[in-house]
């Protein structure tokens, strides 16, 4: 036995543990159980020190004040510990590979966080006189310039709050353009079967009817299938490119031409733009409108469900209808057009959001873009596609690839390789969790059975991918070897085992309620 000093053991004793080891607290060392903040109430404690009001006089105009709110009281140390402990129950890009297809979980550079927190961006009010926010307007203008140049598109609407909001922006512009053409009868929107749920939901949100285009055997949309659906009541097609199977639509130009010839517009869902940024300009594909998820392609953090930002690039045909507000660069510097009367010849379709858009995300996205530059962004797409194809090539002999390669930024598998094992894609995903990986996207897209969509992104190293591939091969073999029980009991090492979603939906408990005394 090695002793390093003064009788202190430096090698562990060999111990055999029979069964599960249960602690008194329920904690498992680094894994802490954590009560709800309401259960941590420490009446009399307070987590802020405020100055006393300068006057007790009130001018409330006779309205009533409230008796109390019912919030718990805690001092700062307990609040900090609560949220730190909660954070430790999350997987994140910072801690593990997070190959969630379609979501683009790439590294979030901390420089971007630092820049967004410069007081000159973080501590300015949207209604300050424009003379006092020239740098902010210039930043928006610079980001707009990059996005327009990268996509080759002449115009952009910056205000949408996320991808789905960008879809709404694009479809509203199409709606307005059709009305201006006197073709308000065009109310049918073509949406491929493989589309993300936000596409049909957005079309319906705009008062359009949704007509589904079936997917081809090869995971693509064919120009014939589109042509079969075209007619003089078609407003537009909403096509995702690269599509949700991770494939570039090879007939995209022909589809765009056919839709245009029939008098419709081409809305491109640009959620997967990260696969082609710097290598292909959507303008060269015949796109009329496309949203860009800054929280995907340009790496603003996903934040556990937002905030995002979804600027929409627009063709000349749709540019006049872009919503308010927008930045213009005049001879006296930058101004902000907030009212239709100041929009010149443009006919903005209205306003989509309070104030001017997701400034905090604009700063982060521009920091990311400047860091990469035109050369680096092209490399981003190349490496994202290379990584996905490497995963595809390294797994297709053991897992069932849905389509022949090459793929774009994500590799799609389906559940055929699990046939006869009893293991479902969900079981498989849960077993990945115990191995330390966040699962891929499952059961989406809907066009293949039991989809497993893997998007590694360009920020994973070859070493990381090799370990991931080895793990996936191991799990696949385990499933094929008949170890169903292993999968069904997964995950075992997480703070919680599988959760009962049926009970959650059947008897919804959506808030804490103070227990009766």
């Amino acid at each position, binding site marked *: 036995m090695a002793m390093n000093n003064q009788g202190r053991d430096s090698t562990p004793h060999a111990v055999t543990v029979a069964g599960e080891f249960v602690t008194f607290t329920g904690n498992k060392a680094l894994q802490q159980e954590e009560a*709800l903040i309401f259960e941590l109430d420490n009446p009399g404690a307070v987590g*802020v020190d*405020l*100055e006393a*009001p300068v006057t007790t006089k009130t001018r*409330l105009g006779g*309205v*009533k004040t409230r008796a109390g*709110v019912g*919030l718990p*009281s*805690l001092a700062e140390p307990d609040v*900090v510990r609560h*949220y730190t402990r*909660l954070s430790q*129950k*999350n997987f*994140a890009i*910072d*801690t593990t590979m997070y190959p969630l297809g379609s979501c683009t979980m790439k590294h979030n550079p901390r420089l971007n966080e630092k820049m967004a927190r410069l007081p000159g961006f973080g*501590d300015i*009010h949207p209604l300050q*006189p424009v*003379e*006092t926010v*020239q740098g*902010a307007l210039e*930043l928006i203008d610079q980001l707009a310039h990059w996005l327009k140049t990268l996509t080759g598109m002449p115009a952009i609407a910056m205000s949408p*709050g*996320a991808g*789905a909001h960008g879809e*709404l922006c694009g479809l509203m512009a199409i709606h307005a353009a059709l009305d201006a053409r006197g073709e308000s009868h065009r109310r049918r929107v073509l949406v491929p079967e493989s589309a993300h749920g936000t596409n049909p*939901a957005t079309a319906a949100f705009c008062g359009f009817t949704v007509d589904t285009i079936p997917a081809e055997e090869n995971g693509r949309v064919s120009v014939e299938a589109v042509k079969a659906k075209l007619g003089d009541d078609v407003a537009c097609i909403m096509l995702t490119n690269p599509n949700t199977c991770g494939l570039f639509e090879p007939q995209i130009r022909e589809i765009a031409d056919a839709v245009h010839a029939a008098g419709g517009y081409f809305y491109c869902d640009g959620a997967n733009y990260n696969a*082609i940024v710097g290598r292909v300009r959507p303008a060269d594909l015949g796109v009329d409108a496309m949203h860009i998820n800054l929280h995907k392609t340009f790496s603003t*953090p996903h934040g*556990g*469900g937002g905030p995002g930002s979804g600027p929409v690039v627009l063709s000349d045909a749709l540019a006049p209808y872009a919503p308010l507000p927008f930045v213009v660069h005049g001879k006296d510097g930058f101004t902000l057009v907030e009212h239709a009367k100041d929009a010149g010849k443009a006919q903005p379709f209205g*306003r989509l*959001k309070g*104030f*001017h858009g*997701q400034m905090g995300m604009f700063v982060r996205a521009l920091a990311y873009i400047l*860091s990469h*530059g035109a*050369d680096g962004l092209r490399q981003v797409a190349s*490496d994202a596609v290379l990584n996905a194809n*490497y995963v595809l090539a*390294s797994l297709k002999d053991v897992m069932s690839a849905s389509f022949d390669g090459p793929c774009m930024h994500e590799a799609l598998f389906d559940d055929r390789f699990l046939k006869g094992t009893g293991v479902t894609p969900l079981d498989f995903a849960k077993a990945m*969790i115990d191995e330390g990986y*966040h699962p891929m996207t499952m059961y989406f897209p809907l066009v293949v059975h039991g989809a497993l969509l893997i998007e590694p992104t*360009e920020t994973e190293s070859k070493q990381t991918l090799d370990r991931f591939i080895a793990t996936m091969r191991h799990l696949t073999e385990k499933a094929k070897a008949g170890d169903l029980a292993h999968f069904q009991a997964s995950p075992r090492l997480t703070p*919680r085992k599988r*959760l*009962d*979603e049926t009970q*959650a*939906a059947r008897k*919804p408990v*959506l*808030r804490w309620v103070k227990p009766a005394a």
Partner: protein
Amino acid sequence: MRYLPLTETDRSAMLATIGVDSVDALFRDVPEQARLKGPIAGLSDHMGELAVERHLSRLAAKNTTASTVPFFIGGGAYKHHVPASVDQLLLRGEFLTSYTPYQPEVTQGTLQYLFEFQTQVALLTGMDVANASMYDGATGTAEAVLMAARINKRNKVILSGGLHPHYRSVVETTCGVMGMDIRAQAPDWKNAEDLSALIDGETACIVVQTPSLFGHLRDFTALCEAAHAKGALVIVVVTEVVSLGLLTPPGEMGADIVVCEGQSIGNGLNFGGPYVGLFATRDKYVRQMPGRLCGQTVDADGKRGFVLTLSTREQHIRREKATSNICTNSGLCALAFTIHLSLLGEQGLTQLAQVNHANAVTLADKLEAVKGVKLVNDGFFNEFTVKLPKKAAKVVSKLAERGILAGVPVSRFYPDMEGLEDLLLVASTEVNSLEDMDALVRGLEEVL
């Protein structure tokens, strides 16, 4: 390139495994004429951290930051002090760099704070349930109108003249395209409108705000009764959520849906975004709500845990029949909100609201003593309207030249409307010192 781990050696080895000789070969589905041969012209090449910092810091330096001047701008976004621990916790990678909690076993952290957030929002608004956030208050309001129309299958919407004009425009734009009949009332700066007379059997909902754009405080109890008698819903909007630390919550007035802009708690000004929409309603309407909902359940061992639930309302399941198209929402801003509110607690929130009101009362008293300045409001929380003897926009520009950001000229929202040019919205929060207030008074005395 510091963010790209692949080396040239890696790339060649990977291409060999794939069985192609170049990355270009992987892009073979791209039509030939759309393939760019090299980096796009006219854009800069990659930069180191230092160069990026220099570039962006130069832009930031061109802006006047709120903390460095006497600052009285509100109008739907408020300058408050955010405790340091809020931002430090937001920067924890486990929160910052995770996705929407689709895999509950590895996102209990996010799910639990969402459950706590939903509870806090329900308590603050006096409602039964709240969702996990909307993009902002304005989009939440439009969603609330659509929800009301789903509930009572009616088409007419009445918007109070006290509603924030951006909210009004977002409702007009988003609900207008759905063919709803939207009756926006004239700016109600005198707090004189009576909306109950406008409600009829076709009215889906009525949208009101307190404190109103002009800072007026309203009790909507009677309005809610009148609306409910005719089968209409009442949506109450709150753009300054700190006010709920002091004033009767909309739930107690009988509101059916409450939408708030949550920026004031935990979130900086950020030039208008990202912010966080709070959305609360009655139990009976839960299945018509937009957005994500987090619910409590148990795991396989019977231990309490949390999941996203009732997702059959949502786009990824219901597609064109979903209650909304929203997907990504405002998760991290909701986290900022919930941490700040936890730090405040019952006592801190009440005190913060009192300090805000006291500062606004003090400022109003001081401004009323300035010759030519008239206070418009009977009551207010931390923002009020003054009538000036000159055009408010001009006065604001002149004061900005003197390094004072005095407030929002109402004409910024309503540039064409006569009779509003002299009105100025002035907000005062806990950040304003007596010296700041005196600077504003002196400034006004000089320019008026």
